[in-house]
């Protein structure tokens, strides 16, 4: 209507496009340390393979083939990544609030327990849409409770969460083991009965035949939604702003009137809930029961995934895919070298990333500060 308005919006949209381009370029460069760390870790792993007298090339080809070779392999990777997206996101959310959540493992374990038990208790007639929602909520609640305890201990007593979350992992394992052995496990197994069909999450193979046999299921889409929701919550709401402020400096946050203790507990509860819900990939989407040891260190790997993804809700997705790929590859190469070589490489990735990231970031900042001053000319020319 008003010609000047449309005229004004033109450059602003262009600017927005430009800033989007610049930001995605920056995001791409932010992944540089992760990629470099992966390459270096693979090289070190290759050396280890060579030391064993095996051909590293054969091992890597087998590894790559198991990941990219066919849809089944990719389905396996996606399945493993689904859990890791969740645990990575859990650690990332806690990290933004200033917490090292090393307890994702235990929170996930109890989440799986709650999901399994609640799904088993549901009446047969529960509709197919409500049953999984109830089970997912139970998992989230259990995880939230387990995360909130170390959160509260830090908020009110000042106890650092690292030791408490580790201790609570062991307590969670013992609790789950007791419930299984004494009450829940089927005869001569360490898992519960199968949950009713209504509570299960559909596998991709039911609508994408290419994924036949792979356990990747609807949980993957849910996890991506959770990533987006966490991003919105942390960066687009007042609550999220306050949580991040607490994470940056609890003292400063207190001075400006943010309820620091409440935010701490809430953030850890959210982190725990996400970790708890991640168990549903296995319990509701794959085996359809709760089993001792089903977490398989996914909680600990979540720490690596979060770090690799720059503790960002969207960063954890590619990082989880990378670690999921390595996990999948480990099984494929197990005939050639012990699959634990993958655990070694994953640990090396963590150590390399924390050494490389600040170095590369420092270099980038120095590079950028120069052209930024003459920015417009540079872009037009």
């Amino acid at each position, binding site marked *: 209507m008003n010609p000047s308005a449309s005229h004004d919006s033109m450059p602003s949209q262009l600017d927005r496009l430009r800033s989007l381009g610049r930001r995605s370029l920056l995001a791409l460069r932010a992944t540089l340390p992760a990629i470099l760390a992966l390459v270096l870790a693979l090289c070190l792993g290759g050396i280890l393979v060579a030391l*064993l007298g095996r051909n590293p090339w054969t091992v890597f080809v087998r590894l790559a083939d198991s990941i990219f070779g066919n849809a089944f392999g990719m389905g396996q990777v996606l399945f493993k990544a689904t859990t890791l997206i969740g645990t990575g996101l859990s650690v990332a959310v806690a990290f933004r609030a200033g917490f090292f959540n090393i307890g994702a493992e235990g929170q996930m374990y109890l989440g799986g327990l709650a999901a399994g038990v609640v799904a088993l208790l549901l009446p047969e007639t529960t509709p197919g849409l409500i049953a999984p929602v109830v089970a997912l909520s139970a998992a989230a609640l259990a995880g939230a409770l387990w995360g909130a305890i170390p959160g509260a201990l830090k908020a009110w007593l000042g*106890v650092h969460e690292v030791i408490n979350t580790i201790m609570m992992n062991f307590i969670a394992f013992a609790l789950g*083991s*007791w419930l299984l052995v004494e009450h829940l496990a089927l005869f001569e197994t360490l898992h519960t009965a199968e949950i009713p069909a209504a509570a299960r999450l559909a596998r991709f193979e039911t609508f994408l035949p290419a994924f036949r046999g792979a356990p990747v299921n609807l949980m993957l889409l849910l996890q991506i939604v959770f990533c987006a929701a966490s991003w919105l919550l942390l960066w687009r709401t007042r609550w999220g702003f306050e949580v991040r402020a607490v994470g940056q400096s609890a003292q400063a946050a207190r001075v400006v009137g943010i309820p620091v203790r409440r935010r701490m507990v809430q953030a850890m509860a959210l982190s725990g809930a996400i970790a708890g819900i991640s168990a549903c990939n296995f319990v509701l989407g794959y085996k359809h029961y709760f089993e001792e040891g089903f977490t398989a260190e996914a909680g600990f790997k979540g720490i690596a995934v979060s770090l690799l993804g720059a503790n960002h809700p969207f960063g954890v997705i590619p990082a989880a895919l990378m670690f999921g790929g390595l996990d999948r590859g480990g099984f494929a190469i197990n005939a050639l070298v*012990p699959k*634990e070589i993958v655990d070694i490489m*994953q640990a090396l990735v*963590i150590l390399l990333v*924390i050494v490389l990231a600040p170095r590369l970031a420092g270099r980038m900042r120095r590079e950028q500060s120069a052209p930024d001053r003459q920015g417009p000319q540079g872009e037009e020319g």
Partner: protein
Amino acid sequence: MGEAFAFLSLLLVSTLRITVPYLFAALGGWCSERSGVVNIALEGNLLNGALAAVLAASWAEAHGVPGALAGWMGVGAAVVAGIATGALHALITVRFRADQIVSGLGINLLAVGLTEFVLKVVYGSSANSSRIAGIPVWEIPGLADWGVTRVLLCTPLVLLAWCTVILVDRLARRSVFGLRLHAVGEHPEAAQSLGIDVVRLRWIGVMLSGAMAALGGAWLALDQHQFTAGMSSGRGFIALAALIFGKWTPRGAALACLLFAAAEALQIQLQGSRLPIPGQWLQMLPYLVTMIALAGVIGRSRPPAALGRPLEGD
């Protein structure tokens, strides 16, 4: 009455044995954290030390070295592995000034992967190594009669652990090295300006830390006569809690280790009794005691002021 005495005596003996890895790891933690470097890699140090001890001991036994000597070679190998692990932590946190907690986490994960990898390559098993003889108890006439003395004075590594407590305690309060370490952990910049080589002291602190914690691992392996995957089971973290509970002093940490070990010993004793408490509930006991102890002491336990902070400037 006699039954109660036997129970207590057993509890005491078992506590003294269980304390050993906690003592070594907590004292190691002291060396690192007093210099200002958080060391949650103690857990990985325990694992690496335990595996190194078994590898060396079983290699020596296979080459005809008598049991006790092979055991001591295992102890030596553990120390070397501990120094190497400590050096890695120092390289990342002191030289490259990266995050100390994340480095510790990474080293712990590395230790889990590496030990299980080596276990498979060397022993062809993902669960445990072959058996080793270990270091036998000294037979000192007269002393070997009564349980507690026997454990305390005739079990070499138990004796070594308590000697280390005394040594580190003296180091902390009476030596130039101890005072400098303290200064570096409290105010590295001030220490630097007084001519203390902060970086060098931190390297030494962290490597000493690795060596001591690895001794704890060696005890675990030699005591159980084998390496089992994940045999550290959180002891490195409990030792760290003991250090905090003991207000970052060697003496306090040693007492806290005794407390946590007593909780574990009680748990094991009760497992054997006919009490109507499920075993898994008892298993939680040491972890719960650790959490409660930490919650109770906080505020009265002050960490080194520069803990977790790398030296500024370069």
